[in-house]
């Protein structure tokens, strides 16, 4: 199994009442699969959009990217910097 740190930002942090949590998924799970685990285990996460932006180890990735033990995955509301 892989232990993944999941981080929530901005509106998503408000939604879950959580900034970071730890989730276990099978090694090489996709971010989509990780998201399913997050929805099941983190209160409020059911209301996340079906396909949020995601970053894996500080880089934006598609939802079919695969995770490994120790990775950090962040769920990002639509960016609005500038």
């Amino acid at each position: 199994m892989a232990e993944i740190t999941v981080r929530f930002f901005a509106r998503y942090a408000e939604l879950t009442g959580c900034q970071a949590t730890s989730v276990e998924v099978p090694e090489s799970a996709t971010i989509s699969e990780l998201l399913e685990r997050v929805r099941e285990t983190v209160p409020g996460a059911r209301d996340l959009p079906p396909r949020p932006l995601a970053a894996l180890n500080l880089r934006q990735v598609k939802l079919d990217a695969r995770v490994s033990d120790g990775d950090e995955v962040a769920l990002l509301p639509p960016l609005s910097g500038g």
Partner: protein
Amino acid sequence: MNKLTRARISVEALLGQIQSGERGGTCVFLGTVRNDGDVTAIDYSAYDEMAREEIVRLIGEAQARWPAAKIIVQHRLGVVPVGEASVAIVAAAPHRDEAFTVCRHMIEEIKKRLPIWKKEIHADGTSTWVDPSGKQIAGGLRDS
């Protein structure tokens, strides 16, 4: 010099780091918090570690494309009152055409790629997350 900052942005300080006899054109872009409706300030938050790395990546990509250019980016975090700058880009190049092109490129990329979020603070003390499409949403989720 490229950074996220909670202090007021000093353009003069940024220029001091970049202006030189090598580069005849310098283009600066400042994004200023606007008094839209009853907005009094915007509270900026970021995924700090990623935003810092993304700024480095953006500048690296731009400098691969325009090797003679020099670029500085600063983005403010925290509460920025109406009329103050939230972001500053300084791009200097040997000639003005390149300075303008690089500066414009950088602000477009920053808006697309930096993990930073705005929350508008209203005169009555309430606040709303800003949807990048320009629409405000109070709690609801409009992205899909």
